[in-house]
């Protein structure tokens, strides 16, 4: 590949639509996925999973499996019970939170279908997989708990009998108690208009492209783990804490990682089990999952029931918002499971000036795959609910939904604005984004067409959906995380090393898995230091080379990690300036740094950064007290979240006879602050929109009445393809974040958070004259038709999102042993 020639100073690096450095390697197959690793003497691990959602393990007979060709070891939960510990949950949201033991491998009881019950290590992956079929597990059925509301009833069977309840915790925020606003009950009692709705956030699966994989090598001085993870640093610390292994004896590497969307923000049972097997056998061990294993055992997302009540005056001014959530934890608490709905607690009020607000969330255990972070984590749920409510209020008042929003949102001259939830929004301009979106969308013309179609009773009705969203991202100020009882801080780390030849290495603590950080960080540092883009190398994802960091999630990498790199670069410049002044025999005050060069003001004298670096390396003649080399590191802890926002408009054509929904046009105008690379931002927005639209129209993890996941393949779990998505019209407005020197806000989750309500609002808007005021997600043709006709489902158990391969009818897709569901 030929490098694009760069002449410093011709075009600023920041804001430049560079193609990604990392792509040439990725798209030509020169990748280093974890599964590509092969070490001498390596064994392959295969995992036997429970096909039953809740059962006592009466016995496991693995004798035959142990005798099979190539098999080196077969282990059950009982074999590892003394050393496997309990998987960590880093977010105890309340002091009295109920927390079940979470063994990586089930010992006495399984609590969801897909839970690990035994593992085989063999010389080849195929031999390991074959041996699973010879393991005979005898299960004794226990009652299955699937529905959150009935799980909370006094007479409900229990997921974990030792906890005495299916309630994990209840977390509450009340504006009157917090002193941030009024009493919501009073507001509701005094309401001129009151809207009450219950929404269902269906269960979703973070369908990352690369299945999870882990390799552990125990043969060196340290245990080295390669894992397809978003969080190598967290993983290392948590492994040490969970297993009692000294932290310095563990090195974790996240090589090329193919997507995560929160789904790889986890310390997984398989990572711990692979580690234990490698330690026990003294040989490298690799585990790579099948897609169906991902679907049943990697954590799921969303799954909430949201009950909202909103009060307003007749003129449209909102006066209060009450939110009551049930959130499904699944069978166990994973890394941040209980905190995910709480991330939404501060966001339901969104961009609106509610004077009174109450939020309460009850987390519930069920016999399903555990839930945890999924792109947006808590904030898409909040945004969906409030944007749906605003459209419902507009309909109730017969107001234009955008007029209603204008009446209630924070004006551009009101920033910084402290919200009813206690957050301070530093910047934004909702008017500008909305005006631009309306212009691109052709709002008035579409409303006219809608009126025409309604008048003519057209079979295909047009709907227009609005979403004026904001989100809190850039996770996060450590003190705020502390106040929310989170188990760690939210700072980020960077190191910059200027090499003797003037080339630059940037070490970052964030861990990219498809975002393009290598390109963006190169641009940031090239701009700051005035060095060519191609002279910057970005190192990440290895706890050895990148010793400090908190990894990538929550749209935090740029706003926190990128800013740490800026601080480190500034420290390099500061040190270089001292040395340059010494070399040039002038005062530091006479030097100005520009385009990679220190110049003496008012003269043509100066020296370049590379010369200073070489001098600092040689160290023959350094000023008193100055250490050799031009390296610097910085940790950045943001003082506030960042608050991207935007206006998304969606037009749908809804076929009132078949219920089919077609997105006719989609316009979004996002304000993500300063943009480092518009091409990368555009990619993030497109992908985010696709995932948000997928929740609105296509995806759902469906369980049958036994707790078996019936959507465990991509033929059944309907990730949309290009054929299902419209052409996106995107644009940006820009207000700088004031919380960091780059002015950046973050863009990883914006599209996902904003788009779901825009689409559902559009579907409902199309059907409102037919008396429809809600359609449950995903808005499949059948669900839309049922909403129109008011028809109830003809069978309670008919699930509606499946593509219909029916792949999971015999516990298929993942290995379940010779009895495959005997009980």
């Amino acid at each position, binding site marked *: 590949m030929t490098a694009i020639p760069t002449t410093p100073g011709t075009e600023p690096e920041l804001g430049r639509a560079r193609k990604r450095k990392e792509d040439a390697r990725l798209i030509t197959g020169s990748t280093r996925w974890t599964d590509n690793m092969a070490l001498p003497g390596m064994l392959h691990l295969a995992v036997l999973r429970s096909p039953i959602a809740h059962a006592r393990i009466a016995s496991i007979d693995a004798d035959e499996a142990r005798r099979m060709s190539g098999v080196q070891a077969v282990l059950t939960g009982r074999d590892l019970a003394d050393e496997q510990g309990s998987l960590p949950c880093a977010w105890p949201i309340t002091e009295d939170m109920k927390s079940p033991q979470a063994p990586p491998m089930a010992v006495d009881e399984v609590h969801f279908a897909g839970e690990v019950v035994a593992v085989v290590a063999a010389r080849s992956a195929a031999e390991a997989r074959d041996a699973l079929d010879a393991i005979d597990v005898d299960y004794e059925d226990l009652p299955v708990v699937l529905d959150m509301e009935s799980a909370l009833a006094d007479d409900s069977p229990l997921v974990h009998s030792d906890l005495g309840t299916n309630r994990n915790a209840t977390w509450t925020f009340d504006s009157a108690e917090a002193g941030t606003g009024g009493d919501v009950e009073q507001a509701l009692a005094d309401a001129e208009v009151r809207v009450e709705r219950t929404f269902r956030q269906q269960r979703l699966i973070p369908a990352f492209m690369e299945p999870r994989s882990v390799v552990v090598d125990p043969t060196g001085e340290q245990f080295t783990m390669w894992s397809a993870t978003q969080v190598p640093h967290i993983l290392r610390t948590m492994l040490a804490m969970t297993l009692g292994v000294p932290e310095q004896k563990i090195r974790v590497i996240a090589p090329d990682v193919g997507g995560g969307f929160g789904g790889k923000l986890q310390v997984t049972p398989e990572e711990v089990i692979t580690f234990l097997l490698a330690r026990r056998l003294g040989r490298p061990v690799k585990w790579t999952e099948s897609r169906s294993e991902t679907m049943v055992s990697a954590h799921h997302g969303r799954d909430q029931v949201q009950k909202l009540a909103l009060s307003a005056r007749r003129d449209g001014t909102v006066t209060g918002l009450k939110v009551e959530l049930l959130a499904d934890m699944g069978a166990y608490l994973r890394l941040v499971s209980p905190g995910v709905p709480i991330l939404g607690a501060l966001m339901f009020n969104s961009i609106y000036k509610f004077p009174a607000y109450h939020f309460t969330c009850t987390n519930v255990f069920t016999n399903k795959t555990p839930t945890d972070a999924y792109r947006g984590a808590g904030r898409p749920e909040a945004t969906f609910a409030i944007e749906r409510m605003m459209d419902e209020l507009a309909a109730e008042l017969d107001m234009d939904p955008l007029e209603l929003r204008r009446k209630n949102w924070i004006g551009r001259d009101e920033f910084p604005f402290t919200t009813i939830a206690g957050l301070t929004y530093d910047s934004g301009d909702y008017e500008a984004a909305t005006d631009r979106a309306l212009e691109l969308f052709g709002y008035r013309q579409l409303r006219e067409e809608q009126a025409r179609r309604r008048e003519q009773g057209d079979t295909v009705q047009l709907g227009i959906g609005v979403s004026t969203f904001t989100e809190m991202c850039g996770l996060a100020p450590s003190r705020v995380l502390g106040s929310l009882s989170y188990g760690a801080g939210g700072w980020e780390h960077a190191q910059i090393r200027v090499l003797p030849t003037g080339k630059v290495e940037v070490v970052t603590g964030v861990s990219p898995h498809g975002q393009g950080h290598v390109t963006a960080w190169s641009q940031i540092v090239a701009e700051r230091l005035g060095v060519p883009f191609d002279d910057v190398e970005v190192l990440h994802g290895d706890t050895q080379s990148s010793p400090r960091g908190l990894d990538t999630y929550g749209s935090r990498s740029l706003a926190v990690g990128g800013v740490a790199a800026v601080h480190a670069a500034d420290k390099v410049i500061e040190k270089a300036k001292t040395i340059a002044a010494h070399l040039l025999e002038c005062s530091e005050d006479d030097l100005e740094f520009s385009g990679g060069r220190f110049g003496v003001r008012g003269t043509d004298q100066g020296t370049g950064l590379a010369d200073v670096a070489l001098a600092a390396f040689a160290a023959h003649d350094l000023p008193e007290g100055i250490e050799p080399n031009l390296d610097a590191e910085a940790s950045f802890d943001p003082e506030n979240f960042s608050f991207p926002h935007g206006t998304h408009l969606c037009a749908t054509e809804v076929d009132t006879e078949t219920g089919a929904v077609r997105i006719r046009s989609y316009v979004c105008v996002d304000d993500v602050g300063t943009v480092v690379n518009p091409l990368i931002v555009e990619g993030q927005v497109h992908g985010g929109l696709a995932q948000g639209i997928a929740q609105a129209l*296509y995806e759902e993890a469906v369980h049958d009445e036994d707790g078996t996941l019936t959507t465990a393949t991509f033929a059944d779990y309907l990730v949309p393809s290009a054929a299902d998505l419209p052409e996106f019209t995107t644009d940006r407005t820009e207000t700088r974040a004031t919380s960091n020197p780059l002015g950046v806000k973050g863009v990883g989750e914006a599209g996902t958070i904003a788009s779901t309500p825009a689409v559902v609002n559009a579907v409902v808007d199309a059907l409102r004259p037919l008396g429809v005021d809600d359609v449950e997600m995903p808005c499949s*043709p059948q669900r839309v038709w049922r909403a129109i006709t008011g028809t109830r489902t003809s069978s309670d158990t008919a699930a*509606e999102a499946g593509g219909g391969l029916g792949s999971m009818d015999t516990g298929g897709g993942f290995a379940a042993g010779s009895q495959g569901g005997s009980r």
Partner: protein
Amino acid sequence: MDFLRPTSWRDALEAKAHHPDATPIAGGTDVMVEINFDHRRPTSLLDLTGIDELASWSEHGGKLRIGAGLPYTRLIDELGDRLPGLAIAARTVGSPQIRNRGTLGGNLASASPAGDGHPPLLASGAEVEVESVRGTRLLPVEEFFTGVKRHALASDELISAVHIAPATGAQQFSKIGTRNAMVIAVCTFAIALHPERQRVGTGLGSAAPTPLRAIEAEEFLSGELADSGQWDSPRPLDDSVVRQFGDLVARAASPIDDVRSTADYRTHALGVMARRTLGWVWDEYRNHPSSTGRPECA
């Protein structure tokens, strides 16, 4: 598992005669999925991809003979203009990769009630040519399907080809799925006009244990059109006729509730698709009575 790979049709028939349990595999887009999910553990696989003649087509006596191993992609490219209904259905199968592998013969052998290829074959009155070392026979396609994923093949027989007449009038195919591509149909409907016989053909998918024709609907509509002399001087159809046709199609169905849909919705949607596709083919027939159909997708 034995893997049999004959290189001639004769060898394939011999192999099937000697291994009646062998599962024939062509594109593998159904068989491999079933093996992967352990729904099926064949004692032997009979790979038909080495037999070139199976992936060819020819024309005899005014009928097309489509080899059982002809992939959908070639069917669309090479026969789409003469079999528009089948081509529309073929375009909705899976993804480009699956259409490159998948075959009409495989679709028939799977005999899924949701097979996309079946309704157009029913609507066109196609015949399935099956062969064994004992000889060859031709089965009308509606006699081929005997139950859910069951067909009329004897254990030593293989599907050799499909015989189908090129379209003489407009044809259409409609499919409802929960996603636009790569999804198994919630339900499908095919219609074909046969002006030379003054008949209308239909085919329903995912509507009953087997793909089926809506015979009462065909009789009704063919009769209405003939009685009113519409074949010779076509006029817009009365709403009542279209509605009755849709109702009769819906009534022919006996769908079930399953993971993809409820029976109620399937019945309703079949009626809607029947009315709409009838509207499309009739409009086309009125405007171009001699045209063979619409090549583009519904």
